[in-house]
């Protein structure tokens, strides 16, 4: 699994790791029951603090993607693809809510917003 960290991005590093791992799981690159690299190992590879990696692994566990067995490591759980899809849709929905709220605040009509969406989507 390759994780590329953008250290000048405003997205916190642990979130970048979480996203990378989720992508690898979704694409099937990381298979169920496969072990993730050890916390210190990944910290060394990415040249970041071990606490950052730990935070990312904790979040993955909390969201149900992995399980950590004390003293053994962190493993990918076999996940229900429909559940993942649902999660992703929910995430998009809340992102869109932010955009719609913003548009209302700036007094931009829904038609204008749709045009804008089409424009961006075509790029």
């Amino acid at each position, binding site marked *: 699994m390759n994780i590329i960290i953008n250290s000048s991005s405003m997205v*916190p*590093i*642990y979130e970048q790791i979480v996203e990378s791992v989720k992508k690898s799981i979704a694409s099937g690159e990381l298979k169920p029951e496969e072990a993730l690299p*050890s916390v210190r190992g990944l910290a*060394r590879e990415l*040249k*970041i603090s*071990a606490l*950052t990696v730990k*935070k990312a692994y904790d979040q993955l566990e909390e969201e149900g993607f992995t399980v950590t067995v004390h003293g053994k490591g962190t493993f990918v759980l076999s996940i229900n693809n429909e559940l993942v899809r649902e999660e992703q849709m929910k995430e998009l929905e809340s992102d869109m809510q932010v955009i719609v709220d913003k548009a209302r605040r700036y007094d931009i009509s829904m038609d204008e917003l749709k045009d804008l969406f089409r424009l961006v989507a075509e790029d």
Partner: protein
Amino acid sequence: MLKINGLKKSYGDFHLDVSMEVPAGMVVGLVGSNGAGKSTTIKSVLQLIRPDAGSILFCGNECGAGGSLLTKSEKEMMGVVLSDSGFSAYLTPSDVKSICAAMYSKFDKNKFTALCRDLEIPERKQIRTFSTGMKAKLKVAAALCHDARFLIMDEPTSGLDVIVRDHVLDLLRAYMEEKEDRSILISSHISSDLESICDTLYMIKKGRIVFHEDTDILLSRYGILKCSEDQYNEIDRQYICRRIKESFGYTCLTTEKHFYMENYPKLVIENSGIDDLILLMEKGENVS
């Protein structure tokens, strides 16, 4: 692993007063400008100087002002690199190997030889012919070879070029990866070193700890705001902790950059590194 409580030491008008902790399994960084007290703290832990007061607990044993001297086995648990000392210039790394092997019961000669080869240190040349970088590498190599549980490193990377620094830091990362209960206390001037290896940071200023934060929080939540005077007066300043007056207005240190990103999209917000932090903590005005 190491717990320092109210450590005090005075030199004339310099007063050190430090409390800090190095938990097992953590890399703790000590930053601060020259003369802030970093080396004094480290020397107190090593009992190279006698503190005036305070307690130092190393693996549960008191070895501070009123405590006992470090025992041989406690000393064997530490690996030490000091900034302004080294091995005699007339020795060769091969001699250093024999001396260390006689001093430390767990010294691994093969590992030392392998490290020397890896770091391109010639084993049979006198140290006086070495460059600054080679001497520094030798010190680190010697500290890593006796299976220490705790490394104390006072500026191990000073005077090294980027490539060698990266190599030394990678050795330290590998050291941490080998066993879970190991710890490192490291001081450095080079902030990128600390950002990439430390789990938590203490900043020391004029003998006092002025700041303590996990590197993770520091890099993900702290940020630099650049704003004009008008903008500065308008914004909610509850998460701003330091400011410096600039020609364009203010440079501010915030502990919650995402708050400002969401609420004030027009502000210029940058990620803050440890350099910015030191500068703002040293020179900035306190806002609160």
